[in-house]
């Protein structure tokens, strides 16, 4: 039953994350709290990396699949989006890609400067 213990860890952390989300008055999801808790647990060796690695890899592989049902729900909200179609399309396509390039370029610039300094 080597999957039982790590799975209980992840569920317990999800539970804690959900508790924090429900009690702290900020729009922060349970998964962000949970990420911080699991990270702290790994750092302090409360949970050891080897214990959770396999189950973690399995759950991470499932992440794209876990998002599919919600994405299908988009079809239901087509009517809502139609009203703001033109600016919406520009923002969703152009805005997202521009933000992507801006933020990636900023990071790459800083990293290449650091590497130059190190050399």
């Amino acid at each position: 039953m080597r999957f039982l213990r790590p799975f209980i860890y992840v569920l317990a952390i999800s539970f804690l994350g959900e508790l924090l989300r429900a009690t702290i008055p900020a729009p922060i999801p349970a998964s962000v709290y949970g990420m911080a808790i699991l990270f702290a647990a790994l750092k302090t060796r409360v949970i050891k990396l080897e214990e959770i690695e396999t189950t973690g890899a399995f759950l991470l592989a499932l992440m794209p699949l876990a998002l599919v049902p919600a994405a299908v729900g988009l079809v239901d909200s087509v009517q809502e989006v139609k009203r703001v179609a033109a600016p919406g399309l520009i923002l969703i396509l152009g805005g997202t890609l521009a933000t992507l390039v801006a933020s990636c370029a900023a990071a790459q610039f800083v990293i290449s400067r650091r590497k130059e300094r190190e050399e």
Partner: protein
Amino acid sequence: MTASYDYLCDLFAHNMFFGLIVTLGGFFLGLSLYKRYPIPLFTPLLVSILVIILSLKIFHVDYSTYKAQSYPLSYLLTPSTICLAIPLYRQFELVKKNWRAIAAAIAAGTASNVLIVWLVALIFHLEHTEYVTFLTKSITTAIGIGVTEELGGNVPIACAVIATSGVVGNALGDRVLRLCRLYEPIAQGLGIGVASHAIGTARALELGETQGAFSGLAIALTGLLTVLIAPLAALLPL
């Protein structure tokens, strides 16, 4: 004939394995297609969405039924997102070493997002409600909903905009980055996470562990920075 077809549809709608089979099957088909023909249209996420919508239409299964059937997958979203802490922990030396790049990516991404939304709102004479609804488009849904509500935006539209932005990042992100000659794995991960949250991160994980770790980190940081910045951005004159 139609009677037996209706019966078949009914059987499918009431079979709780139907939803999972079309979801996993559609995703698997997407993976195989993308391996053979790596074009954005065959991104597993898009293929699975199309396969599911088609199956629901063909067998007259409504979305709420599908939603209930696929609940086991949605249920795993929080536990699996939490596991992003694992690549983050493994890559922590890199994170420490690159904190400046991380700060630059989050700041540049959040600023450009606000700027673009504001400009488009000006050009299209959007109402204030619509403007604030688009402000949250690049952050994870759970944070986006809260911020949109707080600013008086339209929550259902915000959810749709957030999810489609994620799909854009998932399907086109790595391609656009390569086109712009942005090859550094850390920077790629950060950019994808900043612009397209968890849906983009799903793709970043496929690009590599470094991309996945930094994309996951970027989701949390961009979300938190937007919580602080969006109320200020909402004050910009239209």
